[in-house]
Protein backbone atom coordinates (compact mmCIF):
# COMPACT_ATOMS: atom_id res chain seq x y z
CA UNK A 1 0.00 0.00 0.00
CA UNK A 2 1.28 3.45 -0.84
CA UNK A 3 0.46 6.90 -2.10
CA UNK A 4 -0.38 7.36 -5.78
CA UNK A 5 -0.06 10.86 -7.25
CA UNK A 6 -1.57 12.18 -10.47
CA UNK A 7 0.53 15.27 -11.17
CA UNK A 8 -1.74 16.33 -14.01
CA UNK A 9 -4.63 16.68 -11.60
CA UNK A 10 -2.50 18.57 -9.07
CA UNK A 11 -3.22 22.30 -8.85
CA UNK A 12 -0.16 23.08 -6.72
CA UNK A 13 -2.25 24.29 -3.75
CA UNK A 14 0.04 22.85 -1.05
CA UNK A 15 -2.82 21.29 0.94
CA UNK A 16 -0.94 17.96 1.03
CA UNK A 17 2.14 19.68 2.38
CA UNK A 18 0.25 21.44 5.14
CA UNK A 19 -1.71 18.43 6.42
CA UNK A 20 1.31 16.14 6.23
CA UNK A 21 3.28 18.52 8.38
CA UNK A 22 0.31 18.86 10.76
CA UNK A 23 0.37 15.10 11.21
CA UNK A 24 3.98 15.39 12.41
CA UNK A 25 3.83 18.65 14.36
CA UNK A 26 0.28 18.91 15.77
CA UNK A 27 0.36 22.52 14.63
CA UNK A 28 0.32 24.28 11.28
CA UNK A 29 3.67 24.33 9.51
CA UNK A 30 5.39 23.11 6.37
CA UNK A 31 8.66 22.07 7.90
CA UNK A 32 8.10 18.38 8.50
CA UNK A 33 6.08 17.35 5.48
CA UNK A 34 7.26 14.29 3.58
CA UNK A 35 5.06 15.32 0.66
CA UNK A 36 5.51 18.74 -0.90
CA UNK A 37 4.17 20.64 -3.85
CA UNK A 38 7.25 21.61 -5.81
CA UNK A 39 6.84 25.07 -7.17
CA UNK A 40 10.27 26.51 -7.77
CA UNK A 41 9.78 26.63 -11.58
CA UNK A 42 6.99 29.15 -11.25
CA UNK A 43 7.92 31.20 -14.29
CA UNK A 44 7.77 28.06 -16.42
CA UNK A 45 4.46 26.91 -14.90
CA UNK A 46 6.12 23.60 -14.11
CA UNK A 47 4.88 21.96 -10.95
CA UNK A 48 4.15 18.60 -9.40
CA UNK A 49 4.61 16.70 -6.15
CA UNK A 50 7.58 15.24 -4.28
CA UNK A 51 7.05 12.36 -1.87
CA UNK A 52 9.69 10.92 0.41
CA UNK A 53 9.27 7.31 1.40
CA UNK A 54 11.73 5.49 3.60
CA UNK A 55 14.35 4.84 0.97
CA UNK A 56 13.06 6.47 -2.18
CA UNK A 57 12.15 9.96 -3.35
CA UNK A 58 9.18 9.94 -5.73
CA UNK A 59 8.95 12.85 -8.12
CA UNK A 60 5.48 13.10 -9.64
CA UNK A 61 6.10 15.23 -12.69
CA UNK A 62 3.42 16.17 -15.24
CA UNK A 63 5.15 13.96 -17.79
CA UNK A 64 5.32 10.97 -15.46
CA UNK A 65 6.65 9.46 -12.26
CA UNK A 66 10.32 9.32 -11.41
CA UNK A 67 11.52 7.16 -8.53
CA UNK A 68 14.96 7.91 -7.11
CA UNK A 69 16.66 5.65 -4.61
CA UNK A 70 17.96 7.82 -1.80
CA UNK A 71 21.73 7.74 -1.67
CA UNK A 72 22.22 7.05 -5.36
CA UNK A 73 23.72 9.70 -7.57
CA UNK A 74 21.14 11.98 -9.15
CA UNK A 75 20.60 12.14 -12.90
CA UNK A 76 23.09 14.81 -14.03
CA UNK A 77 20.77 15.82 -16.87
CA UNK A 78 18.03 16.89 -14.46
CA UNK A 79 18.43 20.04 -12.43
CA UNK A 80 17.68 19.56 -8.74
CA UNK A 81 14.63 21.34 -7.39
CA UNK A 82 14.95 23.67 -4.39
CA UNK A 83 12.04 21.85 -2.77
CA UNK A 84 13.94 18.56 -2.89
CA UNK A 85 16.86 19.63 -0.71
CA UNK A 86 15.24 19.52 2.74
CA UNK A 87 13.13 16.50 1.85
CA UNK A 88 16.02 14.10 2.23
CA UNK A 89 16.40 15.07 5.89
CA UNK A 90 12.76 14.42 6.72
CA UNK A 91 11.07 11.26 7.91
CA UNK A 92 9.58 9.07 5.21
CA UNK A 93 5.86 8.64 4.64
CA UNK A 94 4.19 6.42 7.25
CA UNK A 95 0.76 6.68 5.60
CA UNK A 96 -0.34 8.62 8.70
CA UNK A 97 -0.61 5.36 10.60
CA UNK A 98 -1.56 7.24 13.78
CA UNK A 99 -4.41 9.16 12.13
CA UNK A 100 -7.10 6.52 12.52
CA UNK A 101 -10.00 8.75 11.51
CA UNK A 102 -8.42 9.91 8.29
CA UNK A 103 -5.91 7.53 6.77
CA UNK A 104 -3.24 9.41 4.88
CA UNK A 105 -3.97 13.09 5.44
CA UNK A 106 -2.77 14.15 1.97
CA UNK A 107 -5.34 11.81 0.40
CA UNK A 108 -8.15 13.02 2.65
CA UNK A 109 -7.47 16.73 2.11
CA UNK A 110 -6.41 16.99 -1.53
CA UNK A 111 -9.03 19.34 -3.02
CA UNK A 112 -8.25 18.13 -6.53
CA UNK A 113 -8.31 14.38 -5.78
CA UNK A 114 -4.82 14.19 -7.22
CA UNK A 115 -3.58 11.91 -4.44
CA UNK A 116 -4.95 8.45 -3.80
CA UNK A 117 -4.18 5.43 -1.70
CA UNK A 118 -2.80 2.77 -4.01
Amino acid at each position, binding site marked *: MGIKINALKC*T*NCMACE*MVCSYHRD*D*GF*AFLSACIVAYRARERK*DYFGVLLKEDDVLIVA*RPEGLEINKIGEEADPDKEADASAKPMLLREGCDLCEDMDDYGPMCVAFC*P*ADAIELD
Partner: protein
Amino acid sequence: MEYLSTDKILIIDLNAAEVEEEDLDETLVKEKIGGIGMTTYLYDKYKEEDPIVIGTGLLTGTTYPASASGQITAKSPVTGKVCHCPVIYKLGVEIKYAGFDYIVVKGRSESPVYLWIHDGVADISDAADLWGKDVWEATDELRKFVGDDLLQTMLIGPAGENGSDYAQVCYNHWNSPDRFGFGKLFGSRNLKGFAFRGMGLIEVAEPEDYVERSLEILKEVKENKFLGKKGLAPILTALGEEGVDEWIDPVTHRHSADYFTPYASNTALFLDEDPGLLEESKKEEPGVLVSDLYALLGFKNSGFSAKDAGSALKACAKYGIDPFAVAKLSGKTTLEEITASFDSISGEITIPGRGIFSPWCPAGPVFNDFGLAGEDGTIAWWERRQAVSMIFGIQPMFSLMCPELTEENMLELASLGTDIELTRETLDAVVDTILG
Protein backbone atom coordinates in the same frame (compact mmCIF):
# COMPACT_ATOMS: atom_id res chain seq x y z
CA MET B 1 -1.87 35.96 21.13
CA GLU B 2 -0.98 32.32 21.45
CA TYR B 3 -2.93 30.59 18.70
CA LEU B 4 -3.41 30.94 14.93
CA SER B 5 -0.89 33.71 15.18
CA THR B 6 2.78 34.57 15.19
CA ASP B 7 1.97 36.90 18.08
CA LYS B 8 3.91 39.66 16.38
CA ILE B 9 3.25 42.99 14.71
CA LEU B 10 6.13 44.57 12.86
CA ILE B 11 6.45 48.36 12.79
CA ILE B 12 8.85 49.73 10.21
CA ASP B 13 9.78 53.40 10.19
CA LEU B 14 11.35 54.24 6.86
CA ASN B 15 12.22 57.80 7.94
CA ALA B 16 14.33 56.59 10.82
CA ALA B 17 15.35 53.30 9.16
CA GLU B 18 14.20 51.50 12.31
CA VAL B 19 12.32 48.26 12.92
CA GLU B 20 10.29 47.47 16.02
CA GLU B 21 8.17 44.54 17.08
CA GLU B 22 5.02 44.57 19.17
CA ASP B 23 3.15 41.65 20.68
CA LEU B 24 -0.30 41.01 19.27
CA ASP B 25 -2.60 41.52 22.25
CA GLU B 26 -5.36 38.92 22.54
CA THR B 27 -7.78 41.66 23.56
CA LEU B 28 -7.36 43.18 20.11
CA VAL B 29 -8.20 39.87 18.47
CA LYS B 30 -11.35 39.67 20.59
CA GLU B 31 -12.37 43.10 19.27
CA LYS B 32 -11.02 43.14 15.69
CA ILE B 33 -10.74 39.40 14.88
CA GLY B 34 -8.01 39.74 12.25
CA GLY B 35 -7.20 40.50 8.61
CA ILE B 36 -8.66 43.82 7.54
CA GLY B 37 -10.31 44.15 10.95
CA MET B 38 -6.81 44.52 12.33
CA THR B 39 -5.20 46.34 9.38
CA THR B 40 -7.97 48.94 9.53
CA TYR B 41 -7.33 49.36 13.26
CA LEU B 42 -3.58 49.68 12.66
CA TYR B 43 -4.12 52.12 9.81
CA ASP B 44 -6.22 54.31 12.12
CA LYS B 45 -3.68 54.00 14.94
CA TYR B 46 -0.87 55.33 12.73
CA LYS B 47 -3.12 57.47 10.53
CA GLU B 48 -1.06 60.64 10.95
CA GLU B 49 1.83 58.87 9.26
CA ASP B 50 -0.27 57.58 6.33
CA PRO B 51 0.89 53.98 6.82
CA ILE B 52 0.92 51.00 4.50
CA VAL B 53 -0.37 48.02 6.49
CA ILE B 54 0.17 44.43 5.38
CA GLY B 55 -1.78 41.69 7.13
CA THR B 56 -3.00 38.14 7.18
CA GLY B 57 -6.39 36.76 8.16
CA LEU B 58 -7.04 34.92 11.39
CA LEU B 59 -7.42 31.63 9.48
CA THR B 60 -4.72 32.31 6.85
CA GLY B 61 -2.36 29.41 6.30
CA THR B 62 -4.44 26.76 8.04
CA THR B 63 -6.58 23.82 6.93
CA TYR B 64 -9.75 25.87 6.48
CA PRO B 65 -10.51 25.68 2.75
CA ALA B 66 -9.13 28.60 0.74
CA SER B 67 -7.37 30.15 3.74
CA ALA B 68 -4.90 31.73 1.34
CA SER B 69 -5.33 35.43 1.56
CA GLY B 70 -3.45 38.32 3.06
CA GLN B 71 -4.22 42.00 2.63
CA ILE B 72 -2.69 45.38 1.93
CA THR B 73 -4.59 48.24 3.59
CA ALA B 74 -3.59 51.81 2.73
CA LYS B 75 -4.96 55.06 1.43
CA SER B 76 -5.15 54.89 -2.34
CA PRO B 77 -3.09 57.71 -3.89
CA VAL B 78 -5.63 57.68 -6.71
CA THR B 79 -9.01 57.65 -4.94
CA GLY B 80 -8.00 59.02 -1.53
CA LYS B 81 -9.90 56.22 0.20
CA VAL B 82 -8.53 53.64 2.59
CA CYS B 83 -8.72 50.46 0.47
CA HIS B 84 -7.98 46.78 0.92
CA CYS B 85 -6.12 44.78 -1.72
CA PRO B 86 -6.12 40.97 -1.44
CA VAL B 87 -2.76 39.23 -1.29
CA ILE B 88 -3.14 36.03 -3.31
CA TYR B 89 -1.22 33.02 -4.70
CA LYS B 90 0.96 31.61 -1.86
CA LEU B 91 2.13 35.01 -0.68
CA GLY B 92 -0.41 35.59 2.11
CA VAL B 93 0.60 32.31 3.71
CA GLU B 94 4.29 33.10 3.37
CA ILE B 95 3.81 36.41 5.23
CA LYS B 96 2.42 34.62 8.28
CA TYR B 97 4.98 31.81 8.22
CA ALA B 98 7.76 34.41 7.81
CA GLY B 99 6.91 35.42 11.34
CA PHE B 100 4.50 38.37 11.41
CA ASP B 101 0.71 38.65 11.40
CA TYR B 102 0.82 42.36 10.58
CA ILE B 103 3.36 44.81 9.20
CA VAL B 104 3.01 48.59 9.45
CA VAL B 105 5.24 50.68 7.21
CA LYS B 106 5.53 54.36 8.11
CA GLY B 107 7.37 57.21 6.47
CA ARG B 108 9.59 57.50 3.43
CA SER B 109 13.08 56.25 2.95
CA GLU B 110 15.73 58.67 1.73
CA SER B 111 16.94 56.11 -0.78
CA PRO B 112 15.39 53.00 -2.36
CA VAL B 113 14.97 50.07 0.02
CA TYR B 114 13.23 46.72 0.20
CA LEU B 115 12.08 44.89 3.30
CA TRP B 116 13.42 41.38 3.80
CA ILE B 117 11.17 39.50 6.20
CA HIS B 118 12.27 35.99 7.11
CA ASP B 119 11.81 33.60 10.02
CA GLY B 120 10.75 36.30 12.45
CA VAL B 121 13.48 38.74 11.41
CA ALA B 122 13.01 41.96 9.47
CA ASP B 123 15.69 43.95 7.67
CA ILE B 124 15.52 47.22 5.79
CA SER B 125 17.81 46.51 2.84
CA ASP B 126 19.36 48.73 0.21
CA ALA B 127 17.47 48.48 -3.09
CA ALA B 128 19.79 50.66 -5.16
CA ASP B 129 20.56 47.70 -7.41
CA LEU B 130 16.87 46.78 -7.74
CA TRP B 131 15.51 50.26 -8.46
CA GLY B 132 14.97 50.63 -12.17
CA LYS B 133 14.56 46.90 -12.66
CA ASP B 134 11.26 45.46 -13.77
CA VAL B 135 9.23 43.12 -11.54
CA TRP B 136 10.59 39.95 -13.12
CA GLU B 137 14.21 41.08 -12.98
CA ALA B 138 13.88 42.23 -9.38
CA THR B 139 12.15 39.02 -8.26
CA ASP B 140 14.77 36.87 -9.98
CA GLU B 141 17.59 38.92 -8.52
CA LEU B 142 16.23 38.65 -4.97
CA ARG B 143 15.74 34.89 -5.29
CA LYS B 144 19.26 34.51 -6.64
CA PHE B 145 20.70 36.73 -3.90
CA VAL B 146 18.99 34.77 -1.12
CA GLY B 147 19.53 31.45 -2.89
CA ASP B 148 15.93 30.36 -2.56
CA ASP B 149 13.56 30.02 -5.51
CA LEU B 150 10.60 29.82 -3.12
CA LEU B 151 11.15 33.37 -1.87
CA GLN B 152 7.86 35.25 -2.28
CA THR B 153 7.97 38.86 -3.38
CA MET B 154 5.68 41.88 -3.30
CA LEU B 155 7.36 44.43 -5.57
CA ILE B 156 6.82 47.40 -7.80
CA GLY B 157 8.23 47.88 -11.27
CA PRO B 158 8.99 50.98 -13.34
CA ALA B 159 5.32 52.08 -13.23
CA GLY B 160 5.49 52.48 -9.45
CA GLU B 161 8.89 54.11 -9.53
CA ASN B 162 7.63 56.60 -12.15
CA GLY B 163 4.50 57.45 -10.15
CA SER B 164 1.84 56.04 -12.47
CA ASP B 165 -1.71 56.14 -11.06
CA TYR B 166 -2.11 52.59 -12.35
CA ALA B 167 1.06 51.19 -10.81
CA GLN B 168 0.51 47.87 -9.09
CA VAL B 169 2.21 46.11 -6.27
CA CYS B 170 2.93 42.78 -8.00
CA TYR B 171 3.24 39.36 -6.37
CA ASN B 172 6.25 37.33 -7.50
CA HIS B 173 6.30 37.72 -11.30
CA TRP B 174 2.62 38.32 -11.66
CA ASN B 175 0.00 41.03 -11.65
CA SER B 176 -2.12 41.38 -8.54
CA PRO B 177 -5.64 42.54 -7.59
CA ASP B 178 -4.26 46.05 -6.93
CA ARG B 179 -6.61 48.53 -8.63
CA PHE B 180 -5.78 51.26 -6.12
CA GLY B 181 -2.39 52.48 -7.34
CA PHE B 182 -0.62 51.01 -4.33
CA GLY B 183 2.41 50.62 -6.60
CA LYS B 184 2.55 54.41 -6.83
CA LEU B 185 2.30 54.59 -3.04
CA PHE B 186 5.24 52.19 -2.60
CA GLY B 187 7.26 54.20 -5.15
CA SER B 188 6.54 57.48 -3.38
CA ARG B 189 8.09 55.98 -0.22
CA ASN B 190 11.18 54.76 -2.09
CA LEU B 191 9.96 51.28 -1.21
CA LYS B 192 10.69 48.70 -3.92
CA GLY B 193 8.72 46.17 -1.90
CA PHE B 194 9.03 43.08 0.26
CA ALA B 195 10.66 39.67 0.13
CA PHE B 196 9.17 37.00 2.40
CA ARG B 197 10.31 33.55 3.44
CA GLY B 198 9.63 31.55 6.54
CA MET B 199 9.16 28.13 8.01
CA GLY B 200 7.34 29.00 11.20
CA LEU B 201 4.90 26.95 13.25
CA ILE B 202 1.39 28.18 14.04
CA GLU B 203 -0.13 26.67 17.16
CA VAL B 204 -3.82 25.76 17.31
CA ALA B 205 -5.92 25.74 20.49
CA GLU B 206 -7.98 22.68 19.56
CA PRO B 207 -6.01 21.13 16.69
CA GLU B 208 -7.95 17.89 16.35
CA ASP B 209 -11.34 19.59 16.28
CA TYR B 210 -10.07 22.30 13.97
CA VAL B 211 -8.74 19.82 11.43
CA GLU B 212 -11.78 17.55 11.68
CA ARG B 213 -14.16 20.45 11.01
CA SER B 214 -11.95 21.69 8.18
CA LEU B 215 -12.27 18.32 6.47
CA GLU B 216 -16.03 18.23 6.97
CA ILE B 217 -16.33 21.68 5.38
CA LEU B 218 -13.98 20.69 2.54
CA LYS B 219 -16.13 17.65 1.80
CA GLU B 220 -19.22 19.89 1.58
CA VAL B 221 -17.31 22.28 -0.69
CA LYS B 222 -16.32 19.41 -2.99
CA GLU B 223 -19.97 18.58 -3.64
CA ASN B 224 -20.06 21.66 -5.90
CA LYS B 225 -20.14 20.69 -9.57
CA PHE B 226 -18.11 23.74 -10.58
CA LEU B 227 -15.05 22.15 -9.02
CA GLY B 228 -14.89 19.94 -12.11
CA LYS B 229 -13.78 23.06 -13.96
CA LYS B 230 -10.49 24.94 -13.82
CA GLY B 231 -9.14 28.33 -14.76
CA LEU B 232 -10.40 31.76 -15.71
CA ALA B 233 -12.43 30.81 -18.80
CA PRO B 234 -15.22 28.95 -16.92
CA ILE B 235 -15.58 31.90 -14.54
CA LEU B 236 -15.99 34.35 -17.41
CA THR B 237 -18.43 31.97 -19.09
CA ALA B 238 -20.44 31.71 -15.85
CA LEU B 239 -20.53 35.51 -15.77
CA GLY B 240 -22.15 35.52 -19.21
CA GLU B 241 -19.18 36.08 -21.51
CA GLU B 242 -19.29 34.11 -24.74
CA GLY B 243 -16.56 32.50 -26.78
CA VAL B 244 -13.88 32.63 -24.08
CA ASP B 245 -13.00 28.92 -24.24
CA GLU B 246 -12.48 28.91 -27.99
CA TRP B 247 -10.39 32.07 -27.76
CA ILE B 248 -8.10 31.03 -24.93
CA ASP B 249 -7.79 27.24 -25.32
CA PRO B 250 -5.09 27.37 -28.04
CA VAL B 251 -2.61 29.03 -25.64
CA THR B 252 -3.71 27.56 -22.31
CA HIS B 253 -1.06 25.50 -20.55
CA ARG B 254 -2.20 24.59 -17.01
CA HIS B 255 -4.24 26.02 -14.16
CA SER B 256 -3.06 26.42 -10.60
CA ALA B 257 -4.66 27.29 -7.29
CA ASP B 258 -3.86 29.62 -4.45
CA TYR B 259 -2.92 27.99 -1.16
CA PHE B 260 -5.41 25.26 -0.10
CA THR B 261 -8.00 26.68 -2.52
CA PRO B 262 -10.22 24.06 -4.17
CA TYR B 263 -10.74 25.99 -7.43
CA ALA B 264 -7.67 26.59 -9.63
CA SER B 265 -8.35 30.17 -10.70
CA ASN B 266 -4.91 31.01 -12.10
CA THR B 267 -4.41 30.21 -15.78
CA ALA B 268 -0.98 29.93 -17.36
CA LEU B 269 -0.76 30.92 -21.01
CA PHE B 270 2.15 29.67 -23.11
CA LEU B 271 3.12 32.30 -25.66
CA ASP B 272 6.48 31.13 -26.88
CA GLU B 273 6.11 27.41 -26.27
CA ASP B 274 3.82 24.51 -27.13
CA PRO B 275 0.87 24.81 -24.68
CA GLY B 276 0.56 21.03 -24.67
CA LEU B 277 4.10 20.58 -23.34
CA LEU B 278 4.21 18.44 -20.21
CA GLU B 279 7.96 18.52 -19.65
CA GLU B 280 9.67 21.57 -18.22
CA SER B 281 10.13 24.18 -20.91
CA LYS B 282 13.71 24.88 -21.88
CA LYS B 283 12.74 28.47 -22.59
CA GLU B 284 13.31 30.98 -19.81
CA GLU B 285 10.04 32.83 -20.32
CA PRO B 286 7.51 30.54 -22.00
CA GLY B 287 4.46 32.44 -20.87
CA VAL B 288 2.54 34.26 -18.20
CA LEU B 289 0.31 33.36 -15.26
CA VAL B 290 -3.00 35.23 -15.33
CA SER B 291 -5.33 35.79 -12.39
CA ASP B 292 -7.11 38.90 -13.63
CA LEU B 293 -10.43 38.03 -15.27
CA TYR B 294 -11.27 41.52 -16.38
CA ALA B 295 -7.86 42.38 -17.78
CA LEU B 296 -8.02 39.24 -19.88
CA LEU B 297 -11.54 40.08 -20.99
CA GLY B 298 -10.54 43.69 -21.71
CA PHE B 299 -7.87 42.59 -24.16
CA LYS B 300 -10.23 40.06 -25.72
CA ASN B 301 -12.87 42.71 -26.22
CA SER B 302 -10.25 45.01 -27.76
CA GLY B 303 -9.76 42.46 -30.50
CA PHE B 304 -6.54 40.87 -29.29
CA SER B 305 -5.78 37.25 -30.00
CA ALA B 306 -5.31 35.25 -26.82
CA LYS B 307 -1.59 35.03 -27.56
CA ASP B 308 -1.27 38.80 -27.97
CA ALA B 309 -3.41 39.32 -24.86
CA GLY B 310 -1.01 37.06 -22.96
CA SER B 311 1.94 39.03 -24.28
CA ALA B 312 0.30 42.28 -23.19
CA LEU B 313 -0.40 40.83 -19.73
CA LYS B 314 3.20 39.69 -19.45
CA ALA B 315 4.44 43.17 -20.39
CA CYS B 316 2.11 44.70 -17.78
CA ALA B 317 3.38 42.30 -15.10
CA LYS B 318 6.98 43.20 -15.86
CA TYR B 319 6.29 46.93 -15.85
CA GLY B 320 4.17 46.61 -12.71
CA ILE B 321 1.07 48.24 -14.13
CA ASP B 322 -2.59 47.29 -13.74
CA PRO B 323 -3.42 45.34 -16.93
CA PHE B 324 -7.12 46.08 -16.57
CA ALA B 325 -6.43 49.81 -16.66
CA VAL B 326 -4.18 49.31 -19.67
CA ALA B 327 -6.81 47.27 -21.52
CA LYS B 328 -9.63 49.65 -20.64
CA LEU B 329 -7.99 53.06 -20.87
CA SER B 330 -5.14 52.87 -23.35
CA GLY B 331 -7.38 52.61 -26.41
CA LYS B 332 -4.58 50.67 -28.13
CA THR B 333 -5.10 47.56 -30.18
CA THR B 334 -1.60 46.25 -30.81
CA LEU B 335 1.03 44.95 -28.42
CA GLU B 336 3.57 47.54 -29.56
CA GLU B 337 1.13 50.40 -29.00
CA ILE B 338 0.17 48.99 -25.60
CA THR B 339 3.71 48.83 -24.26
CA ALA B 340 4.48 52.29 -25.64
CA SER B 341 1.43 53.70 -23.83
CA PHE B 342 2.25 52.61 -20.27
CA ASP B 343 3.37 56.06 -19.09
CA SER B 344 0.63 58.03 -20.79
CA ILE B 345 -2.56 56.24 -19.79
CA SER B 346 -5.23 58.39 -18.19
CA GLY B 347 -8.84 57.98 -17.16
CA GLU B 348 -10.85 56.57 -14.32
CA ILE B 349 -11.60 53.03 -13.23
CA THR B 350 -14.98 52.45 -11.62
CA ILE B 351 -14.83 50.66 -8.29
CA PRO B 352 -18.20 49.33 -7.10
CA GLY B 353 -19.92 50.21 -3.86
CA ARG B 354 -17.88 52.20 -1.39
CA GLY B 355 -14.80 51.84 -3.58
CA ILE B 356 -12.69 50.09 -0.95
CA PHE B 357 -12.57 46.54 -2.36
CA SER B 358 -10.88 45.55 -5.58
CA PRO B 359 -13.06 44.92 -8.65
CA TRP B 360 -10.47 42.30 -9.56
CA CYS B 361 -13.16 40.10 -7.98
CA PRO B 362 -16.50 39.95 -9.77
CA ALA B 363 -19.00 42.19 -7.97
CA GLY B 364 -21.38 39.34 -7.30
CA PRO B 365 -21.57 35.59 -6.92
CA VAL B 366 -19.95 33.13 -9.35
CA PHE B 367 -21.23 29.61 -10.17
CA ASN B 368 -23.74 29.72 -7.26
CA ASP B 369 -26.42 32.36 -6.72
CA PHE B 370 -26.23 32.50 -2.90
CA GLY B 371 -29.99 33.16 -2.93
CA LEU B 372 -29.50 36.80 -3.89
CA ALA B 373 -32.19 38.98 -5.39
CA GLY B 374 -31.74 42.43 -6.90
CA GLU B 375 -28.67 44.41 -7.89
CA ASP B 376 -28.67 46.75 -4.86
CA GLY B 377 -28.63 43.77 -2.58
CA THR B 378 -25.89 42.16 -4.62
CA ILE B 379 -23.40 45.00 -4.10
CA ALA B 380 -24.14 45.09 -0.38
CA TRP B 381 -23.69 41.30 -0.24
CA TRP B 382 -20.45 41.53 -2.23
CA GLU B 383 -18.97 44.15 0.06
CA ARG B 384 -19.81 42.17 3.17
CA ARG B 385 -18.49 38.97 1.59
CA GLN B 386 -15.24 40.71 0.64
CA ALA B 387 -14.91 42.18 4.12
CA VAL B 388 -15.54 38.87 5.86
CA SER B 389 -13.19 36.99 3.50
CA MET B 390 -10.41 39.44 4.21
CA ILE B 391 -11.01 39.39 7.97
CA PHE B 392 -10.52 35.64 8.07
CA GLY B 393 -8.03 35.39 5.18
CA ILE B 394 -10.17 33.51 2.68
CA GLN B 395 -9.29 33.74 -1.02
CA PRO B 396 -11.78 36.46 -2.00
CA MET B 397 -12.62 35.11 -5.46
CA PHE B 398 -13.31 31.61 -4.16
CA SER B 399 -15.53 32.98 -1.41
CA LEU B 400 -17.80 34.33 -4.18
CA MET B 401 -18.15 30.80 -5.57
CA CYS B 402 -18.72 28.75 -2.51
CA PRO B 403 -21.70 29.12 -0.15
CA GLU B 404 -20.37 26.32 2.03
CA LEU B 405 -17.79 28.75 3.38
CA THR B 406 -20.19 30.44 5.78
CA GLU B 407 -19.66 33.20 8.29
CA GLU B 408 -20.81 30.70 10.92
CA ASN B 409 -18.16 28.12 10.13
CA MET B 410 -15.45 30.77 9.78
CA LEU B 411 -16.36 32.01 13.28
CA GLU B 412 -16.55 28.45 14.55
CA LEU B 413 -13.08 27.58 13.25
CA ALA B 414 -11.65 30.87 14.48
CA SER B 415 -13.00 30.10 17.96
CA LEU B 416 -11.72 26.52 17.85
CA GLY B 417 -8.34 27.68 16.66
CA THR B 418 -7.86 30.49 19.16
CA ASP B 419 -9.84 29.41 22.23
CA ILE B 420 -11.50 32.83 22.05
CA GLU B 421 -15.27 32.96 21.73
CA LEU B 422 -15.84 35.02 18.62
CA THR B 423 -19.47 35.87 17.95
CA ARG B 424 -21.57 37.14 15.08
CA GLU B 425 -22.04 40.39 17.03
CA THR B 426 -18.28 40.89 17.07
CA LEU B 427 -18.05 40.13 13.35
CA ASP B 428 -20.90 42.53 12.57
CA ALA B 429 -19.17 45.27 14.54
CA VAL B 430 -15.86 44.69 12.73
CA VAL B 431 -17.57 44.70 9.33
CA ASP B 432 -19.46 47.89 10.23
CA THR B 433 -16.19 49.60 11.12
CA ILE B 434 -14.58 48.52 7.86
CA LEU B 435 -17.54 49.59 5.75
CA GLY B 436 -17.86 52.84 7.66
